[in-house]
């Protein structure tokens, strides 16, 4: 055996690929500017395979467009598409996307998949469509006294060993009768999203490794009684609470 023909740069690229795959999507993208060798390692499927959830194939197979991944020439492109363009799964009742900096799973339950008190009574709630909505239908609040919306998601769908927050994604104002008693839904907790909708954090939870059962997320009034309307509900989203991952922490699924 001789050392001739030994390709040192291939050896180095292999090391860089492995090291990058242990840092995370954010570090990998940032460090791709170091040199062409880093850039090539940072694009490799071996790296992005580690950032995609292990069951991404079966999730895509459950989507309304199961052949979508054939449109991507690399796993990196697929990864970023899943971050920026949520896909609809399980008969479009649920949307799935990835959190860009961690690769953890995010889901949104569509309004039809939620339990909305009085939701089937057209005087109180109407089902319409909204151009900017990822689902076919949204729930529009005409007028109710008692507002209560809830949903459940199975813990096994979510990434394990991860802190999540649940958000109500909505638009419009649930205008209370008296401006001095405006409801929580209009409060300072409401934030505008990139997609033009608004969200309110409902709470957070830690999804333990091997957790079974369901996570229940809901919003209801503590002080009811006022008539309110104008709220348009898209769904309830669960996504990881932003905490920077450190190497070696948060074991991947």
């Amino acid at each position: 055996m001789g050392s001739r023909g030994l390709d040192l740069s291939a050896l180095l690229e292999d090391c860089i690929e492995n090291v990058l795959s242990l840092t995370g999507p954010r570090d990998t993208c940032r460090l791709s500017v170091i040199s062409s060798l880093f850039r090539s390692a940072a694009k490799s499927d071996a790296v992005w395979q580690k950032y995609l959830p292990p069951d991404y194939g079966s999730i895509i197979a459950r989507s309304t467009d199961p052949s979508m991944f054939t449109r991507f020439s690399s796993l990196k492109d697929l990864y970023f598409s899943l971050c920026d363009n949520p896909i609809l799964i399980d008969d479009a009742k649920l949307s799935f996307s990835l959190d860009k900096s961690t690769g953890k799973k995010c889901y949104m339950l569509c309004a039809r998949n939620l339990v909305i008190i009085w939701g089937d009574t057209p005087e109180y709630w109407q089902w319409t469509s909204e151009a900017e909505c990822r689902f076919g239908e949204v729930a529009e609040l005409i007028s109710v006294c008692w507002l209560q919306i809830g949903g459940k998601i199975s813990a096994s769908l979510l990434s394990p060993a991860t802190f999540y927050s649940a958000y109500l994604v909505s638009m419009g104002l649930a205008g209370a009768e008296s401006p001095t008693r405006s409801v929580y839904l209009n409060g300072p907790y409401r934030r505008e999203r990139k997609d033009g909708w608004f969200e309110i954090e409902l709470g957070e939870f830690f999804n333990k490794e091997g957790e079974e059962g369901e996570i229940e997320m809901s919003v209801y009034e503590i002080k009811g009684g006022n008539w309110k309307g104008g709220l348009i509900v898209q769904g309830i989203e669960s996504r990881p609470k932003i905490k920077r991952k450190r190497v070696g922490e948060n074991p991947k699924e």
Partner: protein
Amino acid sequence: MASTDDKVILKSSEGECFEVDMAVASHLQIVKSVLEDCEGSSDKVVSLFIVEAKYVAMIIEYYKNYVELKEKHEEGGFEEKLKEFEKQFLEQIDKKELKGLVMAVNYLNAPALFDVVCTAIAKHIENKSVEYVREYFGIVNDFTAEEEAQIREEHRWAYDGVNDD
């Protein structure tokens, strides 16, 4: 214990020789395949052309402990003890030496130690600036200013809140 038949000599790039138990050396896939290729030959010297003596010594130390701990904790607790040892092992290695070590380990094809060293390097460079990591690896930037600007633009989201060093 082991007879001389169970020993192999590993030769560093400088020509320094290390006598090692086969049980230890067999964790290096490259040594294993070289010995298999020349089975029957009495010559049990394996040249590790590109690997400097200091790295050969580190790799032997790691696998010596690995083999001993595995024997001692056959009943369980091996992984835990190995983790403890790995921590000590990494503490005595200079950050700059990790790069040389990872190349050596990759060349020798030793998966367990490869993971350990890659993780240590990943920990060291995470959240560090491009300039720092470039210097750390001793890598020359081969992009033009325009190319670099374009790549940075592609991944603008990844540059917020990075450490200065």
